[in-house]
């Protein structure tokens, strides 16, 4: 934690603010490469983004968690246990989604629990498509085939 972090992310004062859209990065359509890689550094965030980038209307926290758990357990989404989904959901909510919000890649609505692509999503998507084609194939393929099972 340092001053830079303070500038980029002021902790919300109450729970209602938890889903506030980012301020800093959305003004700048060019997301620095550092930030792109930070967004993509964790496999759960990559999976989330592969799934989400095809859905401009967003996806629910619960559906995203279900699909990630399905991928990790190599099981169809319909067979994901409540416990497995919940564990992923908690990690998304407490760590991954706030980080992506911070980076201006997604927005999160705390009331509806819907995650939506934000201003920087396009740029992350470009990098994802480039890397995914060669190196992230299994993860990407799973995300793209399963997203229709539980998302609108």
């Amino acid at each position, binding site marked *: *934690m*340092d001053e830079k*972090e*303070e500038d980029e*992310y*002021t*902790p*919300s*004062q109450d*729970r209602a*603010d*938890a889903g*506030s859209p980012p*301020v800093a990065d959305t003004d700048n359509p060019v997301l620095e490469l550092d930030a792109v890689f930070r967004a993509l*550094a*964790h496999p*759960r965030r990559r999976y989330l983004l592969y799934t989400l980038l095809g859905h401009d209307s967003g996806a629910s*926290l619960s559906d995203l968690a279900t699909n990630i758990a399905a991928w990790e357990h190599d099981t169809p989404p319909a067979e994901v246990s409540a416990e497995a989904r*919940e*564990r*992923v*959901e*908690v*990690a998304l*909510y*407490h*760590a*991954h*989604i*706030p*980080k992506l919000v*911070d980076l201006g890649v997604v927005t999160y609505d705390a009331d509806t*629990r819907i995650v939506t692509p934000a201003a920087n999503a396009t740029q992350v998507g470009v990098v994802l498509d480039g890397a995914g084609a060669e190196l992230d194939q299994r993860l990407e393929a799973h995300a793209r085939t399963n997203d229709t099972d539980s998302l609108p």
Partner: protein
Amino acid sequence: MPANPNKDDENGSPPKDAVDPDGVTDSETFEAVESTETVDTGEWEQIHQAHYDREGELELATALAFAIADARGVDPVDAVEMPPLYESFDAEALEETFFGPGGADTDRDEVGEVTFRYDGLRVALRSDGWIFVYRPL
């Protein structure tokens, strides 16, 4: 986004360093997320402990959220009703620091510890995986 123009304490409570006798220097950084309802006496009481298994199924963020939910008597299902832990610290970075590749198979003589404030609580994570949750006395 709420502004945080002045990190200095305006309430006349003792400096945060006073509550961290073991020298955790970044406590001041986390001051902003402390509950405003908490009167900081500098005294803490441990109310829960849990163990994070780096080989286990849980991501560190999930393990910490569950530990805090347990400490509060909150059903783990409702851990997504609590304020995001990310407001207090970056669990992914902590996971990498204490439990990431490279450190895992190495003998380390020291046990490291990081403490942070979360919604009025004090949470300590040790590099041996123990999580301790404290509330103010």
